[in-house]
């Protein structure tokens, strides 16, 4: 009895920890990855959902502009499996932050809370917003060209041993290292 109690307390204590060992969290993601294929016959992905969602808005606002091959066939707009997955991902992130007590929702420095970011770019939240926004546009554009993002192509493709995944990861790290070198210069 005592043993079970200690075990459950250990599990709860671990769930409440702010930062897990990357190996433990990685095992969880790996299980999610193959269960998705097993039970839903789908691959995990995050970047596609943005395009489905943007397509739905675009079709409503400017039907002529969005009436092209890409939004009609490659990324059809509307609700689909990966959009639901994406909503779940946001909820999961919120829940995880809440369990470790690091949820910054509504707090004063919520928009710019990373000490390292402040040291490099400055403490103003608007800078964080602008650079995050521009960076995200570049990310989504790159994911659109490559055919997936870190989860949809690198991990989901990688677990099927798709060559595309490994080419993508190599290019991603090459560009990431060069960009960081340029931004950090002597502080690299």
């Amino acid at each position, binding site marked *: 009895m005592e043993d079970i109690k200690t075990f459950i307390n250990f599990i709860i204590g671990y769930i409440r920890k702010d930062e897990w060992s990357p190996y433990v969290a990685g095992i969880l993601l790996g299980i999610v990855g193959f269960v998705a294929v097993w039970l839903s016959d789908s691959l995990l992905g995050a970047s596609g959902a943005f395009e489905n969602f943007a397509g739905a808005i675009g079709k409503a606002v400017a039907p002529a502009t969005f009436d092209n091959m890409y939004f009609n066939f490659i990324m059809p707009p509307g609700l689909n499996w990966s959009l639901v997955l994406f909503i*779940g991902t946001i909820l999961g992130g919120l829940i995880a932050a809440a369990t470790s007590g690091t949820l910054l929702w509504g707090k004063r420095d919520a928009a710019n809370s990373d000490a390292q970011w402040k040291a490099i770019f400055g403490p103003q939240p608007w800078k964080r917003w602008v650079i995050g926004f521009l960076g995200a546009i570049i990310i989504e554009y790159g994911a659109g*060209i490559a055919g997936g993002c870190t989860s949809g192509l690198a991990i989901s493709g990688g677990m099927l041993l798709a060559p*595309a995944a490994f080419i993508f990861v190599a290019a991603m790290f090459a560009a990431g290292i060069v960009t960081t070198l340029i931004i950090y210069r002597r502080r690299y």
Partner: protein
Amino acid sequence: MLSDYTMLNYGMALVLGILFGFSLNKAGLTKYNKIVNAFRFTDMAVLKYMLTALMVAMSGLYFMRWIGFVTFPSVPATYIAGNIVGGLIFGTGMALAGY
């Protein structure tokens, strides 16, 4: 109206999504410094996380195919120029935004 099967499948997506987000957050991949420090070779948590996930998913998937539980979905298409150019653009954005 959505069919029962679609509803069940979307329910599955929601649960898997929550677990996905949970694991990303607990591994610290929602933090700017974790992502960028992987590019500076000062914090390898991102790589440890990604490769662990890859190994677990790969072993699970190939085992399940071996016992006949799954048939593989079509793998992402190899399109070398697209994968490289897309990856380069993606990496640039990733180092900037830190997500």
